């Protein structure tokens, strides 16, 4: 078997990392969701929430925290799970081209019988597979704790949450990949990918504050994913915006990497 050698190499090189991120996400799901029965309906906890500044509560989306779907979004999909998946996605996207190039190892790969777009696409495919695995893993874990933790999530809601989470990962991974393909600098790639994620989160939080700032939501990938809670409402059309931008960033990555000098 010698089809897609770069894709297989990329997967084989990163299974350890994938395992680590899988464990991290399992810890987030396993530590937070079982606490819901003792928090969600707990009057003391609600009193704490009410004592917080309302701006903070809306920024963290804790205004929905008393429902199972709101709690799951506020802890896993919209917060720690989102953070972990974003870090993994940005790191993978940035290392696929820019990291390899800075280490000096990309030059030798390019000297063999591969094309520039083949390198970008096969490595992108490996990143997609890994992100799908992680999103599916979260979906599986949340389904497993849904009953015992009394979250009362619908299957459609859990699946929609997984699709939204995957979309945020794909978006930041491809933007990191594209920034690396354009510049060849790993730190720029990481900064761009992480910057988009942080900015998206910030725009969403600001837009939540009052009606005058709501227009900021339109520019927030975070809001495209979670502005309407997918765990509650199912799949919203705005989620597909994440996938569309990811597709555009992938095309940019291929075109940019085809035309420039490598390793200078």
């Amino acid at each position, binding site marked *: 078997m*010698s089809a897609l*050698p*770069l894709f297989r*190499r990329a997967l*084989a*090189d990163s299974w350890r990392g994938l395992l680590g991120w899988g464990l991290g996400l399992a810890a987030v799901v396993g530590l937070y969701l079982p606490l819901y029965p003792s928090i969600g309906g707990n009057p003391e906890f609600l009193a704490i929430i009410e004592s917080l500044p309302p701006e903070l509560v809306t920024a963290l989306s804790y205004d929905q925290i008393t429902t199972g779907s709101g709690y799951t979004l506020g802890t896993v999909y919209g917060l720690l799970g989102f953070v972990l998946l974003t870090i993994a996605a940005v790191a993978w996207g940035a290392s696929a081209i820019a990291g390899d190039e800075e*280490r*000096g*190892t990309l*030059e*030798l*790969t*390019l*000297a*063999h*019988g*591969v*094309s520039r777009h*083949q390198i970008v696409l096969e490595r992108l495919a490996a990143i997609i597979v890994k992100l799908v695995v992680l999103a599916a893993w979260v979906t599986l874990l949340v389904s497993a704790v849904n009953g015992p933790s009394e979250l009362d999530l619908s299957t459609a809601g859990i699946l929609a949450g997984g699709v939204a989470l995957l979309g945020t990962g794909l978006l930041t991974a491809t933007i990191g990949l594209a920034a690396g393909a354009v510049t060849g600098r790993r730190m720029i790639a990481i900064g761009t990918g992480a910057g988009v994620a942080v900015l998206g989160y910030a725009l969403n939080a600001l837009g939540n504050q009052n009606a005058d700032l709501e227009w900021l939501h339109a520019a927030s990938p975070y809001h495209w994913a979670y502005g309407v809670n997918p765990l509650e409402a199912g799949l919203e059309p705005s989620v597909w915006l994440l996938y569309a931008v990811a597709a555009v960033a992938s095309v940019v990555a291929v075109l940019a990497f085809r035309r*420039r*000098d*490598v*390793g*200078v």
Partner: protein
Amino acid sequence: MTPAIDISALTKRYGRTTALHGVDLAVEPGRVFGVIGPNGAGKTTTMRILLDIIRPTSGTVRVLGEDPRHAGPALRRRIGYLPGELAMDARLSARALLTHYAQLNGSRDTARIETLSERLGLDLSRPVRSLSKGNKQKVGLVQALSHSPDLLVLDEPTSGLDPLVQQEFLRLVREARNAGQTVFLSSHVISEIEQVADEVAVLRDGRIVDVSTVERLRAAALRDIRVTVPATSGAALARRLEQLDAAQDVAVTVDAGREIVSARLRDGIPALLAALAETEVLDLVVQEPDLERAVLQFYGAGSATAEEVPA
């Protein structure tokens, strides 16, 4: 016959620095072509352009009759490349990495990987990242040679290799030439170019200073001689040597009752013997012509205007 490498008016600029100023070069198939020059002369830049790792600013490049910019992976499968700055940090074993590169070239022949590694003394089972610089260099050589490419582009191939392995490498280069492969190699160690190259280009500051055969370079080179004679006959010998063609640095030193006359001469061995015939010679050392110094004369010319150029 189509040249294996045909470069004309090749220019490469990075921003405001110019790495190559209109290089012209043709390498006939089945030849070993050496490029020598100091660091930053443009050797690596030229090689990277042949592999389409970087793109020329202007000029035309043909490798095995095709333009590397547009020929795609099929052309690179016919080239074996060893980068000058070889970076390898893979966790996987040398065997797995070399098999991976073979797959990129669509080659299933792993027997040659084993043979080459054995000849160079490379342990294929060890993780690449744990290998010494010399052993990494062997991995680099094996990946360049293992698919028996039509053209070998080797940037500083013997760097980090111990002398015995260097000799084995030079044998591999000769075998490649005998098999009809073309070898384009760079070095700043002139002796290795001298041992294998049919032709030599001297590159300095992004320009070809000279293209020559090794014989012609050698003819232009000077050789050091040292003659030990009895006391009091040194001065007379020194005078005779000074009259020889292109004699330099003639000097007499006294050592334990004898005199040692040293000089630097351009070939002319018959003339030297004639000069020595009139003296009693106690000891005589004649060194190989110093190609390095011959080439340094090319570097030296105009070095006052030399500019810093990235490699």
